[in-house]
Structures are given as C-alpha cells and as structure tokens.
C-alpha cells in the first residue's frame, strides 16, 4: 500500500547534550529509584484494588486502568518540579498519584464519596488536583494537548520556568487536535513535553492498522521539526532519563518534545472489556516485560537488599488498604452539590 514506508525510528538518547546515542543512560540516584519503585507499587496496588471494588459494586461507572504502564507516569512524576503541570487522560489514575496526590481522595473519587478529590463531581476520568499541579484528566481524545500548550504558553508569558507534561495514547495521534497542538507548540517553542504511551491498541483496534506511519508519535515528530524519540516505556530508568532531559530542555527554553513510550496495558481498554481480541502471544510477551518485577530484579541486582524491597512492597500495600478503608468510610456527597460551582459565584444561576 505504501511504496516507501518510513523505516522504524531507532531508540534516541536524551536529545540534549548526548554526544552519541546511548541505549543505557546512567541509572538514576538510588533514592530516586527506590521512590520510583514505591510509586509504581502504589499505582499497581491502587488499580488492582479499584478493579476489585468495581466487582464488589463499590466503584460504579467506567474506569480505565493503566496496569502495566506505571513506569511512564512514575518516572515523569519523579522528574517534574512541584509547580510543573500535568495533563492526563481518562486513563489518569497513575498520573495523578505520580504527582503526590494522596491516595484517599483519589480512591474516594472513584467510589463517588464526599471526600473524593472533586467530591464525586468528576469521577475516575477527570481526576484533578490543582494544588499538586495535576491540571486535569480529559476524556475527549486530543483536546488536552492543546490545553497543555496553553499552560506552557502562560508559563512563558508569565516568565516562570514551569513545564507542562501531557500524556496520551497512540490512538490520539490520529486526531486533528494532536497535529494542531504539536504544530503550535513547535512554532511557539513552548515548554511542553508530549508523552505518547503507545500500548499498541486504541480501544479494540490495533494502532498499526489505522496509522500511516509505523510509530504513531515518533513517526510524526519530523513533521513538527522535532527529533523522533522512542523509549522503552516499561523501563523506569529509561523513562526517568528521557523525562529529566526533555523537561530540562523545555525549562531552558529549547522548546517542546514528543516522546513515544512503548508499553502495554495488562487488561482491557475499560472495565467492560475482557480484551479477548489481543493475540495470546503478544499478551504473554508483554507480561514478561512487566515493569514492576523487572525493576525489582534490577534493584536487587544492583545491591538493594531483599528485605528493603519487601518492606517497600508491604508499605505500598498498607497504603492501599488504608486508603480503601478511609474512602469506604466516607459519606456520599450531599445532593446540594448538584447546583454548585457551575459559575465562579459558586452556583448555577443563569438568570436574574
């Protein structure tokens, strides 16, 4: 069909300053690695629990789990400054926790409780915590790339050196807003880092079958005068390296980055999806590359004591248990909230 299909892009080292492409960036400092491991465990524990609570009827509606994709969000969370901005999607539990948003209000939001992050008015797909720089989770494909640009533009106009980081899936690279956003970010040289989590599937359709280039994000980078960047999204160290370098470049005024992180969701697209459409072999191969056991193995090989790792695992689990108990103990939101906060006066009045 395509006579000259572009060749797959090669792994690219952190774009700034690297003299030769290196497949093995320097490992992050030990405390960063331990923090990354703890964060990924908390995310994993949180989402597994969310799934269980759904089966028990305690979480309603839909939600989209990032099981298997934890390394991407965790690494960026670790690399970002507290005043940087995150823009995420409906698959945004991990990205929210990554900014240090406490687990209780996140769990309570999923359960539709008064103590929820947005008191139950947003739900799983719209997690937002402005005080943590978590500027929102957006559920219409594409729009939030353009909104992330606005936050980055504002940082530039206000003369702060904040950076916006925007996460989205492979499927999002085919919608117009992606292209509008990338072009504007490049032309205005905005401090924004776009992170495509390529988990190979949009909802139920393999991304390759509907995309003109082999790498949905990296293959488009050239069109916006950006270097193609393809990283192993299941390798927390590699993700941390690309996160720190791309954020540093953006902060220094060198403009946007577009990163494609190869990863895989362990489950279906959403709650309703048993994901039977995926080849068994593919699933098995990716489960073998699960970022969590892989990271534990690496930390142990680099000399972290097994007891220390066990302790982190136990503590992460305890955090999840505690959050579940507290969220479950919370009341339902008062129905008076229905007509609150449509407008800045706190209400919903449209007439006088």
């Amino acid at each position: 069909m395509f006579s000259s299909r572009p060749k797959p892009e090669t792994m690219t080292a952190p774009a700034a300053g690297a003299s030769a492409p290196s497949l093995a960036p320097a490992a992050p400092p030990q405390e960063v690695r331990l923090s990354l491991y703890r964060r990924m465990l908390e995310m994993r524990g949180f989402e597994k629990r969310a799934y269980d609570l759904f089966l028990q009827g305690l979480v309603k509606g839909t939600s989209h789990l990032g099981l298997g994709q934890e390394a991407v969000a965790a690494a960026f969370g670790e690399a970002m400054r507290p005043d940087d901005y995150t823009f995420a999607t409906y698959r945004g539990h991990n990205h929210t926790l990554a900014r240090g948003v406490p687990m209780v209000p996140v769990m309570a939001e999923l359960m539709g409780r008064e103590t929820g992050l947005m008191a139950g008015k947003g739900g799983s797909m719209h997690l937002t915590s402005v005080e943590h720089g978590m500027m929102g989770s957006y559920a219409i494909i594409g729009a939030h790339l353009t909104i992330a640009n606005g936050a980055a533009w504002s940082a530039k106009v206000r003369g702060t050196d904040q950076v916006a980081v925007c996460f989205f899936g492979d499927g999002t690279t085919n919608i117009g807003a992606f292209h509008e956003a990338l072009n504007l970010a490049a032309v205005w040289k905005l401090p924004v880092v776009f992170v495509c989590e390529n988990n190979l599937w949009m909802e139920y359709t393999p991304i390759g079958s509907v995309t003109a280039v082999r790498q949905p994000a990296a293959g488009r980078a050239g069109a916006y005068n950006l270097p193609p960047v393809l990283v192993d999204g299941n390798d927390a160290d590699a993700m941390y390296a690309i996160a720190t370098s791309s954020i540093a470049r953006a902060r220094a005024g060198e403009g946007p980055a577009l990163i494609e992180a190869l990863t895989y969701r362990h489950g279906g697209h959403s709650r309703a999806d048993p994901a039977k459409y995926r080849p068994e072999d593919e699933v098995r191969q990716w489960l073998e590359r699960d970022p969590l056991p892989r990271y534990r193995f690496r930390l142990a090989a680099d000399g972290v004591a097994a007891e220390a790792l066990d302790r982190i695992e136990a503590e992460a689990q305890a955090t999840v248990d505690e959050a579940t108990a507290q969220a479950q103990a919370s009341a339902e939101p008062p129905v008076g909230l229905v007509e609150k906060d449509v407008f800045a006066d706190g209400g919903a009045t449209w007439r006088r």
Partner: protein
Amino acid sequence: MAEMTYRDAVAAAIAQEMERDPSVVFLGEDVAAAGGVFKATVGLLDKFGPERVVDTPIAEQAILGAAMGAAMTGLRPIAEIMFSDFLAVCWDLVANEIAKTRYMTNGQVSLPLVIRTGNGGGVRFGAQHSQSVENWAMMIPGIKVVAPSTPRDVIGLLAAAVRDPDPVLFFEQKSLYATKGEVEEGEIVDELGRATVVREGRDVTIVALAAMVPRAQAAAELLAAEGIDAAVIDLRSLVPLDVTTIANSVVATGHLVTVEENPRLCGWGAEVASIVAEECIFDLDGPIVRVTTPHVPLPAAEALEDAAMPSPERIVAGVRHSLA
C-alpha cells in the same frame, strides 16, 4: 462623548483592558499584524507587542486550547474565532472542556477567558459565514453569552467579559461593525446580565438582541405612526438572562414579541417565551410571538438574505398578531 464605530470599539475595549491588566493576552488568526479580517483589532500589536497580541495558525482547537490552558494558569486570554461558524470545528473545547471544567473539578479550576467571534448575517456571505449561533452557546451550562448592539456596549460588555471570572462567549454582529454610536470618555465597564430598555412603551414589549435591536427600534417607529406604543428591550446577554427586566415590561404591556436572527428551532426567544408563559401568563393579553429567521441556512443573495432575516415590517406584523 465621541462618535465611534462598532469595529473601533472592539479595539478600544481590548486596549482598555490590556492597559489595565498585564495578564490580559489576545490571540487569533490574522489578529495581530493584519489587525483582524474585520479590522476590529488594528493597532493592538503596536501598542502591546507580540508577546501579548499573537497571530496563530489556522487551528481553532489550538487557539481555544491555548486560551483555556492559559486561563487556568494565571492569564486572562481573549481568543478570536474569526467567524462564529468556525466554532463548530472547536466546539469540543467550548462545550466539553471550557464550559465543564469548573464543575467537574468541584471549583478547583477558574477559566477567566473571552472568546470573541464575528456572528450573524446581513453581509451576503452565504450559509457558512453568516450563522447566528448564540443559541448553540446558550444551551451549555457553564459559559456566559453576550452580544452587544452598540459601540458603547461593545466596550462596556467586553470589559465586563474580560474581568469576569467565568468563560464568556462574546458575539460581535458582523453587520454592525460599520455602524456608529456615541461613546463616553474614560473607562467603560458594564455588568453582565443587565438588559437595557432602549425604548419605553405601554402597549407591547419587543425583546431583541444585537443586530435585531436597531430593527426592533425601526419597527417601533413604524408602530408609533399607527398609534401603537412599543417598548424595546436590548437583552445584551443571554447568560445571564435578565428575566427581571423582561418580566417587568411584559407585566406592564401584556404583550411579548421576541426578535431573533437565529433560525427558528430552539432559538433564545423560545426560552424567553417559556419563562414568560410560566411566570407571567396571567399578565398576558395576547399570544407570545416569535419573529425569527425561518428554519433554513442563510442564503447569499441580497434579495434572499433580506427576505430570510427579520425585517422591521415582519416585526410590525408580529406585534399586530399579538395585539389582535
């Protein structure tokens, strides 16, 4: 007092607000160097520089996304969507993102931004550059909807919109850009949600918006010649909607006629009619009449467009029907 065009009032209002508040920025297609396709923003680039007055690519989603992201992080953007028809290509940003974010985040996010757009017909541009789309906006919880009819109100209402903590869709009627009016000296700031009684009258209340206001006034003159004393209300904003001013007038006159440039179905006049029916039915002495463009896209040719849009004569006929 000085005479000014509606078009120049736009630039004057933006300049007034940009001078006052350094967080106000302005972006859109061809708005900076070229001064806008309607020449309504001439001189702003020279006055405020390319950091604050910015030309964008033809990318309406990118424009409104940039405005939204900037508004949630400390700026007060004014974004121009050249023709209101083009709102359809970035409606996700308006209806799903900008309008809902405060609510969904339980009040965490404020979006003090203004979307200015050239709205409406009367300039022979055909169906894709002439729509009156204020109803699209009015239907969505979370945005305010404003449409001035005079140069003075352009300044007062645009200033109010910029200072408002909520997102405002600001409809500038294209057929009014060349019209002139008296504008007082000094800073002008109005309050959103206050209608103006532009003509007092005892016999019937005519409620109009934007370009329909001068037509309603012309109709009132024709009616006066027949001895019918019509009150004319310029709504000025649809959200907030000044029900008080409408109801006070209807209670006094017993008759209501709305004049809408938009196509018939679900026009704002239907909402006004339903409120008046619910709340003032026993004060009415005749049917509520809506004068609208028929439920058609607007045609281009002068003869056809003029036939489609409400004329003073059709307004007069509507009043007669209510009074009959």
